[in-house]
């Protein structure tokens, strides 16, 4: 649901130059998790919230189901495990790992969409005004 980059007519210029020369002024765009103020944040938060919901289901779903329908969850057996045990002991950790992988990939796709390249950071070539660096520590 996140990679639908259809009909966002206001974005092409963001994509081509990554907003680097100020087409989006990130330093003057409010940060509020419920009110994303830039196209990037909107896209990012859409991914974040969708995946957060999936995570909550994977983590707290099995135990809640076990509480509500104890007999059903404990009597169904899958590959030897009672269902509640399987979903909690194996489903939750593995599910979180898969979700993490998916998120990291989606976030990389967002970087690409907005023309962000992190490989340049190592040489710390800031394309921005800081000619004098401020890098010295």
């Amino acid at each position: 649901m996140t990679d639908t980059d259809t009909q966002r007519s206001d974005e092409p210029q963001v994509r081509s130059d990554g907003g680097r020369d100020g087409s989006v002024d990130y330093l003057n765009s409010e940060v509020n998790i419920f009110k994303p103020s830039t196209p990037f944040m909107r896209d990012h938060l859409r991914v974040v919230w969708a995946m957060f919901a999936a995570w909550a289901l994977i983590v707290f779903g099995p135990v809640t189901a076990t509480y509500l329908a104890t007999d059903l969850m404990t009597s169904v057996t899958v590959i030897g495990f009672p269902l509640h045990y399987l979903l909690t002991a194996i489903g939750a950790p593995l599910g979180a790992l898969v979700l993490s992988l998916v998120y990291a990939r989606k976030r990389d796709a967002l970087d690409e969409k907005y023309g962000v390249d992190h490989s340049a950071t190592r040489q710390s070539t800031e394309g921005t005004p800081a000619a004098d660096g401020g890098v010295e520590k």
Partner: protein
Amino acid sequence: MTATAALAPAQLLPDALNASFKLVPSIMVTAMLALFLAIGYVFRVADTEGLWVAGRSIGNLENGMAIGANWMSAASYLGMAALIALSGYYGLAFVVGWSTGYFILLIFLAAQMRRFGKYTAPDFVGDRFNSDTARAIAALTTILIGFVYSVGQARGMGLVGIYVFGGDYTTMVILMMAITVGYLALSGMLGATKNMAVQYVILIVAFLAGLYVVGYVGGYSTVLPQIEYGAMLDQLSSEFTEPFISGGFYLWLATAFSLIVGTCGLPHVLVRFYTVESERTARWSTVWGLFFICLLYLSAPAFAAFGTDLYAQAIGDPYGTPGMTGAEGDVIVVLAAQLANLPEWFVGLVAAGGIAAAIATTAGLFIAASSAAAHDIYTSIINPEATQRQQLLVGRATIVVLGALVTVTALDPPALVGELVAYAFSLAGLVLFPMFFLGLWWENTNRQGALAGMTTGLFIWFAAITNQVLPAYIGALDAMTGESGAIVPVFADVFPAIGAALAGTPIVFAVTIAVSLATDEPPERIKRIVRQCHSPEPMGQQQSAEEVVANKTGESGTTADD
């Protein structure tokens, strides 16, 4: 479940574990400790940048392993199998809480923290809320977390040490802690990070080898014990799988939630993101870290199942009377290898893995605590003119003092390894997580809000611990407790010491938000720093959000800091 130090090792540990000096395992453990010291010496640090953030030079896979080793302590290696064996389905709340929390850390905090780009967790709180008081509270919380958490590690090392070297619990705790402290004071974060990759390999190889061999020899499993143990669950006592026997639904939720938000609030976890080369590395190394963690976490329930079955065959019903003691449970991983009649050197390998796990985590915790003392309290508040030499000195002194305090407390620990560690998670989830989360995701969070929130969090934690844990230590409090072991049973039901964050963290959020709304907005400079943390634009390897903001606003005409 309290094990007292006065007991002789033979009573503390079961006879079957054969706690006495063993030549081959002793050589193995000694060689391993010598290796850690050597690596620490080679990568020793001379400046504070190296001591605390490893020069911000660590890559994906290496940081992933460091996250894993830093994370997987004696609580994961020994304590988790113990909790599953002793408390059945409730123990799984620890598996879930300690693994799935990394996802929340990944989507909400990891990359943004890397962009913020400071040195320590208190640094974030102090700079973000522009307050030395907030910095000091965060620093003291960091030190307190390191203390509570490490007590669990010292107990784990002591119990395993008895198995390898014989001797008594007291000697072993002192010996192991002395080695850990010596190595840390010598090597700092760079050495510790390099060591963590090694320690991860040792601990995961030892754990998995132990699991596979015990499973194979015992006839439980062949190629995938992490799944195959399902088939034997119906042969175990029903206590192993039946839900909500040793902990109700609420306690389960409270424990898992507390461990999840605690994961996101732990300073020694957070600082791992400051050591990486870029924010993308921060993200991917979290994924790698969770993968490395899952390797062990999917295996621990299997190990617990094998161990419980072997225990039932060789010693007696683990859930009967007298049943499995806390000290036995805490070494169930080693005990299982012993009960499966594996050769001594192999049991020694499994034991060595436990020690590696404990040392790696204690290292991370102590570094976080020492930087909190030297950098955040001493340099930022007491003596801003401090030289690198003075900072290093204060940092190392903190490590030594903290090590001594932990050692003394661990001689008479109040709970199981896993439970002790969970108290530290409650604290991190109550005090630091709300500051990190709100600080990064709502720019209007201000100083007054943060101070009110952190104070509330600390109050809830101390109340929960005083209510449930301290009575075992302080006679005057003990006299006030009823049958439940808590002074105010209702409070313990809502805010259990082990899971106080479920009810507490939302309260801290509410207080922080309400006070922030009621008082002035933070200065524009701070807001810009928060915005810089969320911008997609890449930053230099050594740059912090603050520097970027100062440069940019300087150019556009507004006054910068200097």
